């Protein structure tokens, strides 16, 4: 078992090393695509925490992403804060926003939270479009400076790539720690059996709100990174469709581990680039692909890979003693 863990860490580190070398042979356009994909990964990771770990499905993640983005942009452009502070404040602010809303929403049981999240997404998108003093309304926000820290400005796509990559790796590690912590177990207890969880001392309302808060933090950091990277924010970016896309990505990759979020995000983000001629058919391809996948392998590509691994390495089990 330890060997399995060790080998999966080696696989991940190798993949990371290969990925870190990517900018060497890439133009700025492709690098931008990769940067946006990494930011998207953070949002998909937020779906992993909320849906994969805690069993709560939200359609508002792109809205939270927008909250983080507009918050960071306002803090830099209007309040004059340095980008580092804006990044941290947008992360904390979006987390708090989601946590507080969670306290209201999770009084609703079962799937009603999902309904509420659809409402939240609609309201947020409406605010982004119409709240001119804060979001710039339909014109959006322009001239957001690049991220800078200790006087070093991350001008090039390559510098941004490494910066975003480091944040992605850190959040991945934090999610793994969360998974093995008692909070993570509370999430999974609620996902698997809420009544049993309550009977083992897990407070549903608080725990789900924490999960929504953590997912908000991930979306907030992604939003701030996006604001600094693109320099321009439009309400058309933070849409319901984008939230659905995150769900498609995690369904494709698999909800069982944050690795699923990586796989799903990268496949779909890169697919969109490489099959541009087929752009008109993409919705059809996703839709059909997801339907087939859910029938054949509901745990996504990662779940399929895991099943394959277990078939190939049929371990000799110390089975339960025959009683």
């Amino acid at each position, binding site marked *: 078992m330890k060997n399995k863990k060790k080998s999966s860490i080696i696989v991940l580190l190798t993949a990371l090393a290969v990925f870190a070398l990517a900018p060497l042979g890439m133009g700025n356009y492709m690098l931008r695509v990769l940067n946006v994909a990494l930011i998207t990964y953070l949002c998909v990771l937020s779906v992993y925490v909320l849906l994969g770990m805690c069993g709560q499905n939200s359609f508002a993640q792109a809205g939270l992403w927008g909250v983080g983005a507009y918050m960071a942009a306002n803090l830099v452009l209007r309040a004059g804060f340095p980008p580092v502070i804006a990044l941290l404040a947008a992360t904390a602010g979006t987390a708090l926003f989601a946590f507080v809303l969670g306290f209201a929403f999770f009084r609703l049981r079962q799937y009603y939270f999902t309904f509420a999240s659809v409402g939240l997404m609609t309201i947020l998108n409406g605010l982004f479009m119409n709240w001119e003093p804060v979001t710039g309304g339909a014109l959006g926000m322009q001239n957001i400076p690049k991220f800078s820290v200790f006087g070093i400005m991350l001008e090039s796509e390559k510098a941004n790539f490494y910066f975003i990559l480091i944040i992605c790796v850190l959040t991945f590690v934090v999610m793994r720690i969360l998974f093995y912590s*008692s909070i993570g177990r509370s999430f999974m207890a609620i996902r*698997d059996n809420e009544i*049993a969880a309550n*009977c*083992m001392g897990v407070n549903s309302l608080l725990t789900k709100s924490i999960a929504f808060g953590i997912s908000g933090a991930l979306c907030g950091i992604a939003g701030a990174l996006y604001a600094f990277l693109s320099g321009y924010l439009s309400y058309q970016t933070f849409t319901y469709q984008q939230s659905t896309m995150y769900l498609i990505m995690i369904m494709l990759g698999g909800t069982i581990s944050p690795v699923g979020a990586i796989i799903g995000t990268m496949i779909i983000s890169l697919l969109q680039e490489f099959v541009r001629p087929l752009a008109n058919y993409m919705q059809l391809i996703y839709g059909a692909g997801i339907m087939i996948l859910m029938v054949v392998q509901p745990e996504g590509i990662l779940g399929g890979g895991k099943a394959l691994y277990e078939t190939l390495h049929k371990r000799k089990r*110390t089975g339960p003693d025959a*009683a």
Partner: protein
Amino acid sequence: MKHYINEKEPVLTLHNVVKRFGGVTAADHVSFELYGGEVFGLIGPNGSGKTTLINLITGIYSADEGNIMLGGKKVTKLSTHTRSKLGIIRSFQHPRLLGRCDIETNILVGVDLAVRRRLPQARDYQERMNILLETAGLSGVNLKDSTERLSYGQQKMLEIVRAMLSYPKVLLLDEPAAGLNRSEMNYIRALISMATNEGIAVLLIEHAMDLVMEVCNRITVLNFGKQITTGLPSEVQENTAVIEAYLGGGGQLAANQ
């Protein structure tokens, strides 16, 4: 067999607890006390309100009338998770494990509860876990396996191990022996005696009468939500109202055969 009444303060007290579902009274002025270290049996025909009582004690249902006290503290209005943090822990008739998690995670949920209860011994769980797994006949299982690999009986046992790791004051067991074979029943016996040796008050709902008569110190019999009688196992077996409720009159308790 000891008789615990008057020996010490009760751990759990139910006083005139009433629960109605529409026109049906599932718990009709039920009152009893549970003492530390005793096994209190709750028996009665199907639909007599046994599981409802456990749901009332754990707070999954709220009582319409009456009071539930844990030690000197009134818990009647508290939420389920608060009650479990005070030490009221249960198992379920059909095991409710974390189905997508491995066995170890399921066990650690019990440890987490002990930590939440701020018990000083909570974090040194390894030894207790090994003893419990051994007692439950689960020492051979791979903790990294999914719970789906466990038999039905083993899943029930794992649920009790999980509960025991949180050091309950009151352990509520809802038909732990249902669906188990003879040797698995012995593990249940061993787990119950481990609990009572630790001074835990055990409430046992069970249809396997030989087990009930063997392990219970006192028994209360329910029918249509009402307590027919409460007493020693020998007294209960002789009670004509009980025999009436179980067999519709005439003959001995099925249990005795």
